[in-house]
């Protein structure tokens, strides 16, 4: 038996969480370094996954598989395995977490002068332990190929997230301390309720899936691979109405997590009230489980229902794109602005997934990665800025570029990546999503293109109001980025540019997975009107020059 690499990748941060939580109250710094160390070990494992993953032609769809019985009587298996999409998202998670830990280095320190309630009070340890715990659960969600196993981690990650949102604010909200605590609690509760409702509906659907498979197969199963095989061989065929109900049950949970209009309203609260690293954790990592699961479970398990639901899903995605962007333009709080921008971007991701073309789904997967990195860069710099002034309100800033040019410069690059400037990763993914959508649904592609203009508006308005103009009173001595902060942001920026110039490493991994998914749903890319028969050799020929 080979080394269980995926288990190790998920286990490393889990052990790290326990170890970090166990550090004594007075040794905060030890806890921080311990957490960073474990996140780096996780990154090491994730890179090993990346390297071990075979992208060659004829390679297995799911690789690095592990399979054991978990609860034999209920058909639940401990089954892991990754396709290209899973690999890319595990890598994204493992890359981002060390930066989030670095960015939140001092975010959970006890406020000075505030006497701890008792000597065992360890907020710093708790903060980093919870982040690592979320990382472990997210990685398990990306790696699980047993639907029930996936469900367990999909739901369980709500608990640490709830405490991260409710327990650690950015101390920059409006109102007094008590009011802030109330807003935070509200945000955390709202997050929990929305996701819990989705989760419970999904649980019913998960059980329904088992029942439906038990009907036709010798034994009921939760195994994605087993179900895919059974479908391919014709042993398993859901009744139309069953499939559609099951699809809806799954989709609702994922559409809340991703989140899609009109189920999005928990996100601005959650991202606004939590600290910047937690906000990034929500939008860049945790929410990606939702879009990932749409691609893997909704399309993979319920292809017919996916076709059936496509018009509605595309409409919701388009509304999200435009609505999120317009709301972002209207925001006065910069973290909420970024949250609404994310809603717009999730619209693009869902659009790409349900366009059911190679470019759409490949672009959507790249979008998940690029959005994660770009939003992390923008949000973390915003967090650094907010921590300096103690306010999230855009109008409290102005002229920052004069006093803190490096901060302003990195903020601008993060913003430009968010508006999908060519040369940055998000451009590649957004263009692929749009072209992939357009090739099947022209009108949807054109409507979504309006996002190109709207994104420029919300990003540049934000930059103009905070960074340009005369220096706002109280900001004259604003310090520029510190070494730790620059060390967090600079690599993210380098990565976002690299993926814009040379996305090949990603596309090579993702393309085969997308082909499999498209064959699951039995769709082919639309052929061009004018088949370029004379030039068919062109692209291939160019390769050899």
């Amino acid at each position, binding site marked *: 038996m080979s080394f269980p690499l995926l288990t190790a990748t998920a286990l490393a941060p889990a052990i790290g969480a326990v170890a970090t939580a166990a550090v004594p109250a007075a040794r905060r710094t030890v806890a921080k370094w311990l957490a960073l160390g474990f996140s780096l070990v996780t990154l090491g494992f994730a890179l090993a996954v990346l390297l071990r993953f075979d992208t060659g032609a004829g390679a297995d769809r799911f690789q690095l598989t592990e399979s054991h019985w978990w609860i034999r009587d209920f058909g639940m298996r401990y089954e892991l395995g990754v396709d290209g999409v899973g690999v890319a998202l595990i890598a994204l998670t493992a890359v981002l977490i060390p930066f989030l830990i670095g960015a939140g280095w001092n975010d959970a320190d006890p406020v000075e002068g505030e006497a701890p309630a008792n000597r065992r009070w360890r907020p710093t340890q708790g903060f980093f332990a919870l982040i690592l715990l979320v990382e472990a659960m997210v990685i398990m969600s990306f790696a699980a190929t047993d639907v029930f196993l996936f469900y367990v981690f999909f739901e369980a990650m709500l608990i640490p997230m709830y405490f991260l949102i409710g327990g650690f604010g950015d101390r920059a909200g409006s109102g007094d301390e008590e009011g802030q605590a109330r807003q935070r609690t509200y945000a955390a509760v709202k997050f929990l309720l929305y996701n819990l409702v989705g989760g419970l509906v999904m649980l019913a659907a998960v059980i329904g899936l088992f029942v439906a498979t038990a009907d036709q197969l010798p034994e009921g199963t939760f195994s994605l691979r087993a179900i895919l095989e059974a479908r391919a061989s014709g042993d398993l065929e859901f009744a139309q109405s069953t499939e559609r109900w099951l699809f809806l049950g799954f989709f609702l949970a994922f559409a809340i997590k991703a989140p899609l209009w009109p189920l999005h309203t928990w996100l601005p609260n959650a991202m606004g009230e939590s600290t910047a690293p937690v906000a990034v954790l929500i939008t860049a990592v945790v929410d990606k489980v939702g879009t990932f699961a749409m691609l893997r479970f909704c399309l993979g398990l319920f292809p017919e229902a996916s076709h059936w639901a496509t018009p509605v899903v595309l409409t919701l995605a388009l509304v999200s794109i435009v609505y999120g962007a317009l709301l972002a333009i*209207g925001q006065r709080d910069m973290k909420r602005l970024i949250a609404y921008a994310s809603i717009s971007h999730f619209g693009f991701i869902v659009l790409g997934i349900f366009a059911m073309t190679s470019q759409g789904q490949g672009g959507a997967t790249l979008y998940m990665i690029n959005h994660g990195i770009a939003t992390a860069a923008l949000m973390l710099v915003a967090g650094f800025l907010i921590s300096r002034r103690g306010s999230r309100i855009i109008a409290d800033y102005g002229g920052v570029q004069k006093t803190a040019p490096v901060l302003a410069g990195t903020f601008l690059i993060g913003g430009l990546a968010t508006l999908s*400037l060519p040369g940055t990763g998000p451009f590649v993914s957004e263009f692929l999503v749009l072209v992939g959508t357009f090739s099947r649904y022209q009108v949807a592609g054109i409507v979504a293109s309006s996002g190109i203009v709207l994104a420029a508006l919300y990003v540049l308005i934000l930059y*103009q109001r905070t960074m*340009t103009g005369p220096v706002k009173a109280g900001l004259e001595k604003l310090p520029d980025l510190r070494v730790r902060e620059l060390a967090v942001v600079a690599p993210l920026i380098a990565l976002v540019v690299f993926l814009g110039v040379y996305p090949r490493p990603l596309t090579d991994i993702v393309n085969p997975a997308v082909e499999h998914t498209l064959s699951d749903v039995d769709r082919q890319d639309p052929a061009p009107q004018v088949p370029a028969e004379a030039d068919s050799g062109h692209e291939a020929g160019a390769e050899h020059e």
Partner: protein
Amino acid sequence: MESLIALLIAAPLLGAALLLVGGRRLDRVGHWLGTLLAAVSFVLAVVLFFDLLGREAEDRTLSQHLFSWVPVADFQADVAFQLDQLSMTFVLLITGVGTLIHLYSVGYMEHDERRRRFFGYLNLFLAAMLLLVLADNYLLLYVGWEGVGLASYLLIGFWQHKPSAATAAKKAFVVNRVGDVGLSIAIFLMFTTFGSFAFDTVLPNATGTSEATLTGIGLMLLLAACGKSAQVPLQSWLGDAMEGPTSVSALIHAATMVTAGVYLVTRSADVFNAAPNAQTVVITVGAVTLLFGAIVGCAKDDIKKALAGSTMSQIGYMMLAAGLGPLGYAFAIMHLVTHGFFKAGLFLGAGSVMHGMNDEVDMRRYGGLRKHMPITFATFGLAYLAIIGFPYLSGFFSKDEIIYAGFSKGGGQGWLLGGVMLLGAALTAYYMTRIMLLTFFGEKRWQPDANGHEPHPHESPLSMTVPMMVLAVGSVAAGFLFNLGSSFEHWLEPVTGIAHGDSPVSHGMVSIAATGVMVIGVAGAWFQYGRRPVPVVAPTGNLLTRAARRDLLQDDFNHAVLVQPGNYLTRGLVYVDHKGVDGVVNGTAAAFGGLSGRLRRVQNGFARSYAVSMFGGVVLLVAATLLMRAV
């Protein structure tokens, strides 16, 4: 030779990276480093040019494939370059004028503490612009297209502490993005039609494709061109872009970037040739813009904004010519090059005047400057003669050719186009003479500024005047050289094709008419501004004058039709999102069994509630499974 193409782009890109990331260590040498790398690029361009000249006309295309950029199934985007006669012309213009303007900026930006960053942005612009004209496919072109937009944004807003500059920069970027949507959709259409967006697939296959599709592609490309080239209806950003340093206005907003739209149309010649309806729209846009810009140029007292109006108008000529198809492509590009010389020269001259006048831009506060700035006067004067089409200077050749091509369109259309362009020529002579007279002739009208400093007009340093002199020589000679044996036409012919229509009027007649209207325009301006003293405060003027001063109400229109409703919409949606969507979803959730409501009430017991629901879920699961087994 091919491998030099990438170096052409790499040199300024390296400069941008070094200057922007290098930090203060490079403050002392940054400007020279930037200028040097621009010059390196120019030298490479010259080498490549002579290489092309040494080949047969049909053989003058070099291509270089660097790497496969975005391969996703049939979507194959490469980073690959193509250098042909059209690209080569642009490359020489961009690197040549670009290097001169780098040199000029050394002096012009001398007192700016952020000069290193300025040169970083200029280098970034050069790299992006070269990428734009050298790309061998539309997606890579798009990268350069938005890259120059970024450089333009950064440079318009270079003095970010001024709110007006920051606003102008944002406006330029956003308006351009509207155009970029057009380019995006054009590429989508190409991909769905041809399965590719590489020039060598799309263009040869254009003929024989459905005309409706080609019209769609053409109109979307035109939308992009309108954004970048400040053509009606996306013209409103260019005047405000004058907030940037003047050398930026010269390079980006006169000589090179704003002409990218003309490049795009000319590059896509095969698409437009097969889509006559799209061509008609191109012609209309060009004709409207050439009058629009000229009228605005007549009314502005700000020297840079007057020149900006002129730029719009001249690009209108180019766009119109490009809309004429093979009749006009070569002359559109020829005018683009000569315009690059004289308009860059005019802007640099304006910058030199401002440099000596404490950055005053109001021409009504100039007057009689020819005695104080003889070199600026002479170089500006030569560029002036070139733009108004003074016989045998460069503008005379290129503009007359376009007017002649307009007549050659034939029929009523030909007369209409010819007439509009002659009217535009008269207006050109009028507004340029007005600028000339207000600035260099008459009595001095400058006064001490608010701090009591009276300007002491003086000639600019050599680093500034030498580029002006070189451009002046170009303004004078370029047209004549290009026309030696129709050399320029023949140079471009393999790319753009050439056609001759039946003009109802002869070449000579057009020249005579154009010279005639020029004299009328000059005389009109002289009667108004040369014969009698100029009031320092502008008279109220008639309705048209007042509208023209407000850019023919373009901003009022956009504000009323787009900005204001947009503001209401976003504000309304913010309210609805907060009250409505949130409320409805919460309410629906509450209605379903009151789960959320009950949970909300027990605010402190969440972990417990959660545990209960998880437990409930598991019980449900177990029960269901057992039940199923029992059945």
